[in-house]
């Protein structure tokens, strides 16, 4: 009996000892440790992977060039499984156990909103590559982003819809995503103020597969177009089911549409649909073409928006660390807050007093199974 008890006690003891040892090892390391939260698995896995590619690319480049402040950069990436709640858990782990000096992530606004209060409290600067909901940076002065925000994106799409002559529209909102709820709100504000009407407002939840119930209601209303500010996984199915029900109205949405799998799943159903995005690989600017070529040589495919945004946010962070001359959270924050005309792949980044980037948006369309550039909208 006694030795059974002892052996039971021995395991946790030796485990905690091992942890203690590894803990010591970390203290002694001279690397600059930065954390990344990405949805490597689950519903938005394509984005998490894209962001991760971009961040890794930036880290490798900086290390190849000798690191920052004479030290190598070490990246620790945590997967939040695209699950609500999980981003907070892994952020806590990165901040308190790994002692990261800064954090990159997430793309989905709901996840960034979970991360932000933790980073703010721990005085760890956090840069979100692609969360467009305005609430994200309102959490505090340690939270930054390198993309435009939804009041702008919603207005862009509303203006675009009106310019297309769509007066009567339906909207389908993903009620589980702050991004989608926010974008719907800003779209609606601008659209209805300028003469449009939203005839039907339907909603769905991330992970749904069947949208026929909502789409049948939209069909009955008879609209010019449908605004779907969702994520690519659901948008693909929504589009194909809409066509099956005989709805031929075009659809439009935001940067949540950006992934190659949208076209693979929806096929012809998304032909002639429009969405706003952060950059287009067709852009002839040197920065973008250089980046596209570099990425193609590594991965043999075109980089998605979130590869570029992941890269930009990491490079911006490194630049701030260099200028601050330290990795101290407050010093880096102060430099980040003064960011002006930082040359990013997705455009020059200038952060306003609310720590949001002011950048132009592009409108893309799907033509013959390819994403094609339509126009650029300046802020």
């Amino acid at each position: 009996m006694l030795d059974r008890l002892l052996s039971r006690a021995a395991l946790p003891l030796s485990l905690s000892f091992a942890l203690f040892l590894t803990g010591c090892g970390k203290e002694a390391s001279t690397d600059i440790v930065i954390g990344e939260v990405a949805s490597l698995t689950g519903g938005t896995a394509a984005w998490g992977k894209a962001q991760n590619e971009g961040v890794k690319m930036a880290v490798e480049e900086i290390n190849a060039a000798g690191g920052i402040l004479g030290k190598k950069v070490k990246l620790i990436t945590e997967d939040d499984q695209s699950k609500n709640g999980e981003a907070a858990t892994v952020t806590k782990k990165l901040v308190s156990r790994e002692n990261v000096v800064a954090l990159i992530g997430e793309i989905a606004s709901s996840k960034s909103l979970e991360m932000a209060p933790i980073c703010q409290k721990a005085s760890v600067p956090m840069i979100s590559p692609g969360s467009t909901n305005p609430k994200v940076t309102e959490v505090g002065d340690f939270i930054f982003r390198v993309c435009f925000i939804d009041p702008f994106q919603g207005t862009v799409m509303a203006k675009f819809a009106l310019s297309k002559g769509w007066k009567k529209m339906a909207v389908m909102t993903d009620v589980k995503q702050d991004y989608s709820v926010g974008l719907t709100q800003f779209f609606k504000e601008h659209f209805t103020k300028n003469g449009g009407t939203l005839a039907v407002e339907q909603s769905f939840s991330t992970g749904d597969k069947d949208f026929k119930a909502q789409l049948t209601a939209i069909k009955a209303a008879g609209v010019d177009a449908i605004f779907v500010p969702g994520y690519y996984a659901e948008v693909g199915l929504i589009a194909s089911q809409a066509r099956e029900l005989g709805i031929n109205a075009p659809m439009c949405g935001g940067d949540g549409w950006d992934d190659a799998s949208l076209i693979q799943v929806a096929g012809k159903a998304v032909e002639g649909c429009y969405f706003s995005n952060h950059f287009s690989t067709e852009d002839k600017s040197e920065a973008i073409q250089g980046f596209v070529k570099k990425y193609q040589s590594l991965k043999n495919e075109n980089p998605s928006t979130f590869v570029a945004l992941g890269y930009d946010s990491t490079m911006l962070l490194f630049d701030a660390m260099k200028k601050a001359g330290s990795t101290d959270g407050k010093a880096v924050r102060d430099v980040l807050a003064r960011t002006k005309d930082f040359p990013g792949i997705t455009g020059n980044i200038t952060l306003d007093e609310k720590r949001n980037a002011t950048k132009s948006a592009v409108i893309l369309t799907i033509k013959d199974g390819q994403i094609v550039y339509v126009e650029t909208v300046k802020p």
Partner: protein
Amino acid sequence: MEQFLQQLLNGLFLGSIYALIALGYTMVYGVLRFINFAHGDVFMLGAFSGLYLNKWLGPALAPFHWSLSLTVILVLSMALCAALGILIEFLAYRPLRNRPRLNVLITAIGVSLLIEYTGQLVFGATQQPFPALIPADNIALTGNLAVTNTQMIVFVTVVVLLVALRYIVMSTRMGLAMRALSLNPTASALMGVNNSVVISFTFGLGSALAAAGGILYASLYPSVEPFMGIIPGLKAFIAAVLGGIGNIPGAALGGLIIGVTETLVGGYSSAIGLPTGYKDGVAFVILILILLFKPSGLLGKTEREKV
């Protein structure tokens, strides 16, 4: 009215797939008195085997009519998943057969997680487009009702499989053995029934139906990922309980009811001021009501036959 009919149709097609999955739950419960929570994951594996079989056999089958290649892929996936179901039973559940039922139940949850995360490792975490095994085409019904031929074929396949299952259970020696086993395992063993073989067969049959369900579901909603089985599996489980678990017609009826209510709630919830998200909740509310007022399920009492 037209909108209502369309919603009813939508619900019917969704419900028919729930019914197909619910049968697997109900059969295993009938024979072994435990809920096989890994059933939804066999459903997922069915969809993925369809995806990969189409990748490998697609070129060879291309010259033939699509109905032939659909049948080949469907039958092969069903056989594959049947073998897998038998294997799961053999490895995970058989060693626990004479243990408390709770042990098997917990093991089933473990098997479910094992399949999901292995799937994520093997197939990747991102969703993949499912090939159009049935060429998309709209069938215009009277008025403005829209039905695709995918939906029609899914529905017909489900009905054929249900009839075949009914035949196997009611009119074959194996079916007789299954029913005997469900009535009293000890007595059936004494009468010369090889219980192990019958249980393996039941798992194989249930898994084959799950595989068919997976392929048909993926044809309707053409994107597959390793966690796609969880929600349909849960809904089908509710359908099985609703109809009276252990009862075959009950599972089919339960599936249809869940499918139709879910669609109607989804379609009309915004009209009565409910967010559409509540449509998933409705299935669970139904489950609670059934458990409160008729714990044996809708058809649980009237038919004594249990498989």
